[in-house]
């Protein structure tokens, strides 16, 4: 099976911890929970463990719940969204 290439964006503290703002990540299965995807990201960027409990993810610019099963396809964009502080 071909791997699926996901564009992953990092913002705020997540970008500080990872060191880059964007990274393409290949996954093998299209259906996985948001928290499983986060675990994959953390395995590649272990320093993200620090914000694991507080971060949220978005898929194609919409928030997802960490229990949601994501149906991913190549080119999808997932952002690691630590607690926000706009306003």
């Amino acid at each position, binding site marked *: 099976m071909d791997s699926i290439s996901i564009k992953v964006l990092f913002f705020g503290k997540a970008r500080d911890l990872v060191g880059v703002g964007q990274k393409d990540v290949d996954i093998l299965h299209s259906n996985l929970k948001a928290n499983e995807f986060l675990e994959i990201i953390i395995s590649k960027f272990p320093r993200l463990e620090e914000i694991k409990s507080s971060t949220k993810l978005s898929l194609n610019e919409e928030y997802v719940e960490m229990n949601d099963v994501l149906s991913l396809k190549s080119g999808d964009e997932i*952002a690691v969204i*630590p607690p926000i502080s706009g306003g």
Partner: protein
Amino acid sequence: MTDYLEITTRKLDLEEITQLVNLPECGAISVFIGTTRNNMNGKLVKRLEYEAYNNMAIKEMKKICDQIRLKWSDIRNIAIFHRIGEVQVQQSSIIIAISSPHRKDSLEAVDYCINEFKRTVPIWKKEWYDDSTYVWKENCECIHHEKKISTN
């Protein structure tokens, strides 16, 4: 009825933004201006930097506008401008201006708008202190802090 939504590195211009919502049938323009404070828990703030997930931030701002128009039927124009990049102490980071024929609607809508904005719009503030340390701030009302009280 128009929504003016913008994330910009430019200094925010109150007059320009309020003119966007000024309409002949409106007797009220309600405005909220968020400015940057010079101290946090006793530490002196030297400067602030904001960054945004631009496309998603605009989408979330649009959702807030849609909610406002559901809750208050008499709202006319809405303008939400947020500045990113470096913002000096005492400068504006956000300006919200909302117009309505009568003041009650726009006053209530502005309050709702800033509360929702701080809850959902993906923008981050980095606070630099005079001892050269920094902190990524977290809004106490942000959506991230809600999941801990929800049941799965």
